[in-house]
């Protein structure tokens, strides 16, 4: 607990306190280049953890496909709403 105080912009997301969340987001680079860089970083992390290994498993792409299914369900929810069986839950 005797670490020197880390400036806000360099903290990882899990170390950011809830009250500082908005200011933490404002310190991040939100320009198109920054967003593309962030997407690439995230992709590299995922790729190097699950796919770029000697003996990978099904999890690498299964997680991608599952998240695709879930995301597409969420985007179509307004249309699927009409197939509900009961009106009041």
């Amino acid at each position, binding site marked *: 607990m005797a670490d020197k105080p880390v400036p806000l912009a360099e903290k990882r997301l899990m170390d950011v306190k809830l009250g500082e969340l908005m200011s933490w987001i404002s310190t991040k680079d939100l320009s198109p280049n920054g967003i593309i860089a962030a997407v690439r970083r995230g992709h590299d992390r995922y*790729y190097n953890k699950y796919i770029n290994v000697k*003996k990978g498993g*099904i999890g*690498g792409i*299964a997680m991608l496909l599952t998240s695709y299914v879930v995301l597409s369900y969420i985007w179509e929810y307004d249309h699927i709403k009409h197939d509900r069986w009961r009106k009041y839950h």
Partner: protein
Amino acid sequence: MLSRLALVSASALKSSGPLGAGLVQASRSIGTSPQSLAPVPPLPEKGGQVRHGIIPEELFQFLYPKTGVTGPYMLGTGLLLYLLSKEIYVINHETFAAASIGIVIVYGIKKFGPSVAAFADKLNEEKVSKAQEVKDLAVKSLTEAIEEEKKEQWRAEGRQMLFDAKRNNVVMLLETNHRERLHMVTNEVKKRLDYQIDVQNLHRRLQQEHMVDWVEKNVIKSITPQQEKESIAKCITDLKKLAQTAKATA
């Protein structure tokens, strides 16, 4: 093991787009960034753990201290019931389609997973062994080159001996030449001295003969004509006497 196939195809992928290029670039970022490591670290053996194929192990580890082993399963069940009861997840025709597809996929993965994994491993193995062959060949040729170099250095040392032998040859030639010239000199000198000796002998002989001739001439000159007549008469009487004695004995 499908991700192994994904790796095999991703490294051969040449698709356009930043993500596609990023896919290929991620495994080849050597020397392009300032923090590159010179020998590339080997690939990790196993990837991040995933349970039941779709849930990362980190969730289970995250919930373990508070809820134990069954925590995430309880969370899943509760979440499922909530989604179903509030009809946030609606059961319609798509549910049955998804269920049948899911069953087929799970059955296929369970049955053909290991063989596909072995196949992908074999492909990787071949690639690695080819690269290793190239590396081994290069190392072998370089060590051979080192051996050749050492042998050349040894030969260069041997050339010193060659130079010594040649130097000795040259010295011997010079000495032979020198001695030949000495011989020539002595011969010439001897010839000249012999000539002088012969000249002196010749002188002496000529002097002797001249003296003898002179003595003879003087003797003959001293014989007067009268003495010549007396000697001739004596010779005749002697001859007559001899003829008489010869006639008497015969």
